[in-house]
């Protein structure tokens, strides 16, 4: 005797939960799925509901359930309420508008929208309003509109939200709902009121005509809001002493949209906003939620200055709230208003700066962004002190942005050159490894321009090098400075502070130390070698320098070799031989060359023997790849793409994207530009770094605008030379 009755839902759940391993669970699921499938095949009406429910449970666990989609449709078509309930739920979980099968629902939903039982109508409205596709919405909009006019508030509120969904999917249908909105706000039922306000909001956001049309509702909305605030305790809608906060928030939001840019409307809502702002209880989150929405509204409409100050002060108080969520929204809002209401926000500067010490990462980030926005000529010293302290102690994820922010602020508002150099020094020494690569040339430029500070700068940088040579940007800037102003260093000309006593040999020791140190990146080595070379015109220890150069003339590091060889070229020997020693032009590549570009230009064909290849050549766009191995990690292939354009029109907004299989890791650095000039007049280069130990495969995606049209192409790159991944 075998029992064919499918097991109950809760029984299945209980059974599956006893599985001790993933494999055991999978086995149970497979067994049950097989049983369910055969039950479906038998067209069993009695247990279809139970089976689909079980399928939905298994779907939630992550198992495929698509074979149940049609069964959901059968359940929806059934007359039993239980069936419909599960059927609609299944439809919402298993079907989506991308599958044609969902359209089969349309007729059922249409029938159910006209069902005699409101709970069935409710199911249909809910499903349509949650997942209805554009086609379904078009077909059924008329039914929804009908229900929007019913006196049954249970259905009316659902119809309103369903209409919102219809409008979102098919915006041109918005007009047809206009007549039905006529009396929506006269409703007493809060559910209908709330959903009506949502519907009106959606319409106003999408259509300026609707917005103009609905402005006349402002007095009515103000009245409803006033009643909510003034009315006594209403148990049905009360949340911690506040009457229907959800409705209050939605009304405030609609008022915001209606009042924006309109003097009359803004004036009409001024009083109620002031009232809400001053009378709302702030001890719990719910009150603060309303205050928050009020602040957003005040800031967006044409409110009088007193009201705006009131709003900013509310945010200021939020900043002092124990609840971190409140502090978070305050910072977010202040960040939005800092440009328009700068002075008002400045008043809360110290509280904002305190938030830099907050434990929450999101709060810290916002406080940092806001702090930078508040820096000006008056508060630069104080603010920078706080921000540098923050830079010292903050998480690595903030350091790069903070350092960039400090450099920017210092450049704009530095009270003195000395202060500026000191600030840069502070950043380089405390967060030196996080400073962005492109800061280095900017800093070098800055130092060059601060002529009177050269002696001080080079001295400070030299001293910093004695302490720590691990932070590459610091070392690079320091090397460059020593190369340029080494003579000032050894002559002890510093005015700003006690000049140090240092000899040429000591300086060269330091620079040579950088060349051999494992801590130095190839770029850094390039900087130090260049610096040593420059010192040949400033120092007298020319022999020592020549020796260093000849050592590196046979260096395994090809770019150093190249550099050394170039420097040892005829020009230099001539220069060294003569009595007049002209300055070696500083247009020698001193820029860090965004980790690839210009160094490769230097290298030319000296690419460690990996031949370049053409990765893509179509429609006039050609992309070549050149290769090198990264130092020190030989498993990282550094590929530079060179994009050229042989057509007669530029390719603008050029974006190169790459993807590799999961087993690889890929990093794309910034491109040299987004315009590939016509007629091969230039190339766009970009560096890719791939971590790989297997045969390299890549897919590339190119998008650009050519002669006014957007072009997109996908391609596979399979012709990588074997040396690039071995």
């Amino acid at each position, binding site marked *: 005797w075998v029992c064919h009755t499918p097991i*109950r839902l*809760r029984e299945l759940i*209980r059974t599956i939960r006893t599985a001790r391993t993933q494999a055991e669970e999978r086995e149970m699921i497979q067994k049950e799925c097989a049983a369910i499938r055969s039950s479906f095949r038998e067209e069993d009406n009695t247990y279809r509901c139970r089976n689909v*429910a079980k399928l*939905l449970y298994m779907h*939630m666990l992550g198992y495929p359930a698509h074979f149940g989609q049609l069964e959901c449709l059968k359940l929806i078509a059934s007359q039993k*309420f*239980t069936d419909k309930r599960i059927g609609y*739920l299944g439809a919402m*979980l298993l079907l*989506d508008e991308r599958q044609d099968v969902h359209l089969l629902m349309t007729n059922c939903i249409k029938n159910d929208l006209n069902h005699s*039982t409101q*709970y069935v109508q*409710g199911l249909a409205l*809910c499903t349509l309003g*949650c*997942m209805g596709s554009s086609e379904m919405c078009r077909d059924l909009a008329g039914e929804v509109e009908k229900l929007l006019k019913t006196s049954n508030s*249970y259905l009316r*509120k659902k119809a309103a939200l*369903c209409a919102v*969904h219809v409008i*979102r999917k098919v915006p041109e249908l918005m007009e047809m709902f206009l007549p039905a909105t006529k009396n929506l706000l006269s409703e007493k039922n*809060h*559910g209908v009121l*709330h*959903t009506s306000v949502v519907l009106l909001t959606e319409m106003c*956001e999408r259509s300026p005509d609707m917005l103009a049309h609905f402005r006349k509702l402002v007095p009515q909305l103000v009245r409803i809001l006033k009643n909510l605030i003034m009315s006594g305790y209403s148990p*049905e*809608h009360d*949340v911690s002493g506040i009457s*229907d*906060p*959800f*409705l209050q*928030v939605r009304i405030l939001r609609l008022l915001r949209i209606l009042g924006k840019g309109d003097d009359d409307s803004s004036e009409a809502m001024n009083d109620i906003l002031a009232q809400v702002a001053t009378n709302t209880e702030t001890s719990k*989150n719910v009150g603060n*939620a309303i205050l*928050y929405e009020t602040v*957003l509204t005040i800031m967006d409409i044409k409110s009088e200055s007193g009201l705006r100050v009131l709003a900013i002060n509310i945010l200021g108080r939020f900043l002092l709230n124990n609840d*971190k*969520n*409140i502090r*978070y*929204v305050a910072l977010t809002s202040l960040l939005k208003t800092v440009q328009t209401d700068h002075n008002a926000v400045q008043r809360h500067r110290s509280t904002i700066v305190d938030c830099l010490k907050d*434990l*929450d*990462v*999101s709060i810290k980030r916002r406080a940092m962004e806001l702090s930078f926005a508040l820096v000006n000529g008056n508060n630069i010293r104080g603010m920078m002190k706080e921000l540098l302290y923050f830079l010292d102690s903050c998480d690595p994820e903030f350091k790069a942005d903070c350092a960039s922010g400090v450099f920017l602020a210092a450049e704009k508002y530095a009270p003195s050159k000395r202060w500026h150099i000191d600030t840069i020094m502070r950043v380089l020494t405390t967060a030196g490894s996080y400073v962005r690569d492109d800061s280095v040339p900017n800093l070098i430029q800055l130092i060059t321009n601060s002529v009177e500070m050269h002696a001080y700068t080079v001295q400070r940088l030299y001293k910093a090098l004695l302490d720590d040579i691990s932070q590459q940007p610091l070392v690079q800037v320091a090397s460059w400075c020593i190369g340029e102003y080494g003579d000032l260093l050894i002559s002890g000309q510093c005015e700003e502070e006690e000049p140090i006593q240092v000899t040429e040999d000591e300086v060269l020791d330091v620079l040579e130390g950088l060349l051999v140190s494992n801590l130095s990146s190839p770029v850094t080595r390039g900087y130090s070698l260049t610096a040593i070379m420059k010192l040949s015109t400033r120092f007298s220890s020319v022999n020592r320098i020549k020796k260093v150069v000849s050592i590196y003339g046979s260096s395994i590091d090809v770019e150093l070799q190249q550099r050394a060889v170039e420097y040892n070229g005829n020009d230099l020997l001539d220069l060294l031989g003569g009595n007049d020693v002209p300055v070696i032009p500083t247009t020698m590549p001193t820029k860090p060359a965004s980790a690839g570009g210009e160094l490769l230009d230097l290298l030319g064909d000296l690419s460690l023997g990996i031949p370049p290849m053409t990765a893509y050549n179509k429609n006039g766009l050609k992309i070549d790849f050149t290769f090198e191995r990264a130092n020190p990690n030989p498993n990282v292939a550094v590929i530079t793409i060179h994009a050229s354009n042989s057509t007669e029109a530029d390719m603008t907004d050029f*974006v190169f*994207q*790459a*993807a*590799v*299989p*999961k*087993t690889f890791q*890929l*990093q*794309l650095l910034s491109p040299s530009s987004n315009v590939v000039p016509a007629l091969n007049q230039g190339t766009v280069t970009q560096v890719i770094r791939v971590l790989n130990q297997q045969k390299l495969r890549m*897919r590339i995606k190119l998008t650009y605008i050519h002669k006014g049209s957007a072009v997109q192409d996908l391609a596979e790159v399979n012709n990588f030379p074997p040396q690039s991944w071995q």
Partner: protein
Amino acid sequence: MDGWMDGWMDGWMDGWMGGWVDGLLLTIGITSSFQMQFMLLFSRQGKLRLQKWYVPLSDKEKKKITRELVQTVLARKPKMCSFLEWRDLKIVYKRYASLYFCCAIEDQDNELITLEIIHRYVELLDKYFGSVCELDIIFNFEKAYFILDEFLLGGEAQETSKKNVLKAIEQADLLQENIDYQTRLFAGVMVPSMASESSGLFQS
């Protein structure tokens, strides 16, 4: 061929979705400025207990989003605030005993009122199940959906009165001719300091 394509497609999609290409991040899409895009309920072990999607996405995308988000939220420390930025959405989450309630809202939406929405939903569950715990939601997941669907529609609140939502559910339940016999499971002795599946959601 299949194996190749699968490995490739995922890597490809990951590459695009992962956002390691400068400035190009896949977004789910802003539908309007104020919409809840989805709500997820999951346990502290990352097991999904409920998923309600208000935007059209493929099963694969939903799985990916769920996986990522669950990981992100579970990694949050208790001292952190209930909001985080994720892709171009705002995530509002709150833990009740052993269950995380997690909503994705859009940029212009009010995070604080979303917390109230979540709280209201938990209150409804609590009233319906009587001191609700995670086990109730596991064994009666379809009921949890029904209740949610009487409270929210298309990501918006359709009813702001607790009483009315519960009344509607009650009536709908009565319409059901075959009501499955529900057995409440007790998971044994409750350890007060640890939130387990049988901890009432409102116990702190």
